């Protein structure tokens, strides 16, 4: 492949110290101005063929981050590199070749498909950018078949499909331009459980066949587990934990991650009712005026003075598990000795990595093996 992306040594996507803020007005007359730091100094990379899960509660900035990555939004600061090329502030014309390499699938398949266009037109429009070989109609039929839909239905309108099928159309449209990275923004949240599983298996298959990279945005840790190689947990605009997928479930280091895991109901009454749950107290503080120090301290059962004053740096533990907490859970003395400040740590974070493990009991049901 020629341009874009000639630099093969770099990761597919690199995000460095990305920030996105939006102006807000407060007060009845809209006089007082403030800023929402929706994404506040976030860094990560996505390798070829990898799936990065991006998890957090509503308002944590995960969708804003996803949209900055595919440049639907212009980041306020930081850099986004695609195959080594800085695309952070490219204009719309310069972005065009990258648009074909990075696609996005939205949560609501009803809102993201034009109700007045036939499926062949919806997918066909994407083919204008990169038709590949063969006639347009052939490509549309091939794409529909690829996502498990009947190619005969190309002339139908979106409303003639069920929710799960509409989401497949969204995936087909994203695939039309032969992308390398697809951002999936809550792709199954609007679907029924049994249909969710179908769509996730489809995404799995496509990744295997086409070598795609995914950024999978979700609020549900149980769904993310099945698709992700690595998972980043966000809280109020910051990444608080980033690790290999299974490790996040067996050994959560940040109390917020643990509380997210403990909140997920288990479809087994005895197990679900017998576990002691450490669920976060209260609710998400306003992102306009986030708490000082560690942003989670207002809800954390193990918060101490340092948490209220100093922002914990994202810290790399031996094995590559990263977390930003002064009192990390599930870490041994040797983990702590080998810990160092992550290059992805926020610049506003304090200098010191944690010296002692947290005292919060790790009492959620562990993953079976």
């Amino acid at each position, binding site marked *: 492949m020629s341009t874009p992306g000639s630099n093969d040594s770099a990761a597919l996507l690199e995000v460095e110290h990305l920030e996105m803020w939006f102006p807000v007005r407060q007060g009845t007359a809209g006089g007082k101005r403030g800023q929402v730091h929706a994404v506040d100094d976030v860094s990560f990379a996505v390798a070829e063929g990898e799936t990065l899960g991006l998890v957090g509660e509503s308002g944590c900035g995960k969708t804003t981050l996803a949209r900055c990555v595919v440049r639907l939004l212009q980041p306020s600061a930081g850099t986004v590199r695609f195959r080594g090329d800085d695309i952070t502030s490219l204009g719309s014309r310069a972005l065009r070749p990258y648009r074909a390499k990075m696609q996005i699938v939205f949560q609501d398949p009803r809102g993201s498909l034009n109700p007045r266009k036939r499926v062949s037109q919806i997918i066909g429009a994407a083919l204008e950018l990169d038709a590949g070989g063969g006639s347009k109609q052939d490509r549309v039929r091939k794409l529909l078949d690829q996502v498990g839909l009947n190619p005969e239905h190309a002339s139908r309108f979106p409303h003639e499909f069920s929710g799960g099928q509409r989401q497949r159309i969204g995936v087909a449209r994203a695939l039309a331009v032969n992308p390398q990275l697809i951002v999936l923004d809550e792709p199954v949240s609007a679907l029924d459980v049994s249909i969710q599983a179908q769509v996730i298996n489809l995404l799995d298959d496509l990744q295997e066949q086409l070598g795609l990279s995914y950024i999978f945005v979700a609020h549900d840790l149980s769904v993310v587990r099945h698709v992700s190689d690595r998972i980043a947990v966000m809280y109020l605009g910051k990444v608080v934990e980033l690790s290999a997928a299974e490790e996040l479930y067996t050994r959560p280091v940040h109390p917020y991650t643990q509380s997210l895991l403990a909140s997920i109901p288990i479809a087994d009454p005895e197990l679900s009712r017998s576990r002691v749950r450490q669920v976060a107290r209260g609710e998400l503080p306003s992102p306009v005026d986030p708490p000082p120090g560690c942003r989670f301290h207002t809800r954390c059962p193990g918060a101490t003075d340092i948490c209220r004053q100093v922002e914990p740096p994202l810290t790399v533990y031996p094995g590559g598990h990263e977390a930003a907490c002064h009192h990390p859970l599930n870490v041994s003395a040797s983990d702590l000795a080998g810990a160092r400040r992550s290059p992805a740590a926020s610049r506003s974070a304090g200098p010191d990595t944690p010296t002692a493990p947290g005292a919060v009991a790790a009492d959620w*049901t562990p993953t079976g093996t």
Partner: protein
Amino acid sequence: MTALLEVEDLDVSFRTEEGVVRAVDHVSFSLQRGELLGIVGESGSGKSVTALSLMGLSRGPNASFSGRVMFGDLDLLTAAERQLERVRGRRIAMIFQDPMTALNPVHRVGDQIVEQIREHEGVSRRRALDRAVELLDRVGIPRARDRARAYPHEFSGGMRQRVMIAMALSCSPEILIADEPTTALDVTTQAQILAEIDKLRRDSGVGVILITHDLGVIADVADRVVVMYAGRVVEQGSLADIFYDPRHPYTWGLLGSVPRLDRARPARLPTIPGSPPSLLHPPAGCHFAPRCAWRFEACSGVPELSADDPEHTEHLGRCWLPLGLARARRVVDGSIGLPVAAAGDRAGTSSTA
């Protein structure tokens, strides 16, 4: 003990331009005092229409009903609108999935609760407001007196749902119907709200009907479970019946397709092949048969909802498979589920016919 609510053979159909949709098809269940009954099903299963019909909220020129919904001596299905008004909000309260659309955006939440209290009871504004504040406090809203003066948009989703619960409780109802009360909320908030509902029915003895698509939620708080599929009850029984001795292949499929954090990650997520049928043209016989790996000749007829295990007469299933065979077939790879069909991951086309 007589039941708080007795639903017998409830049938709800709607006339549409394309034909008659039978949204609820011979549904029967009962609710006891202090009990939490979970109704679980996917979209289009008829679970919400069932709930709305209990309160006469699905009435309209194109709707027709049959069966009985006995609340004490009153049949809610045939009760006059004036009689229903005395029941709604006061004796049977309801909370909805989206608290933003259920609250009036231009009135303070305290005033909305006061209005509700004064509508049903002749108390002074001041006393009603005191009650409202007390209720907000009880459902876990901090600084309740101040927050009563706030507008709905000043609350987060979870707090709004707490306001809805406070409002629902304002007249000490005997029954609380909660239609997907936590679906729009984050998981940490969901856990808090479920705990609140659970505490409430233990403290006050209110009977709760909790409608959800999430078996995890059911596992957490329900006492008994009704599983609905395409307008029909396919299985009902105690929590243990449904989770540990499920009778119907659809229940197996549902249990199998829930991602489980307490188990090892499978290479592929188990699914139920295809998609639910259109209620305009439902399949003859068992509605689940077109998606069922175990269908056989008998499935072209409608199975009765019946108790097949003489030791568990409260456990009802609507399936032609003999009980012994069902128990043998429901285990796939060591846990309950449906076997993966050859074309299991292709999208069904039945609903777009």
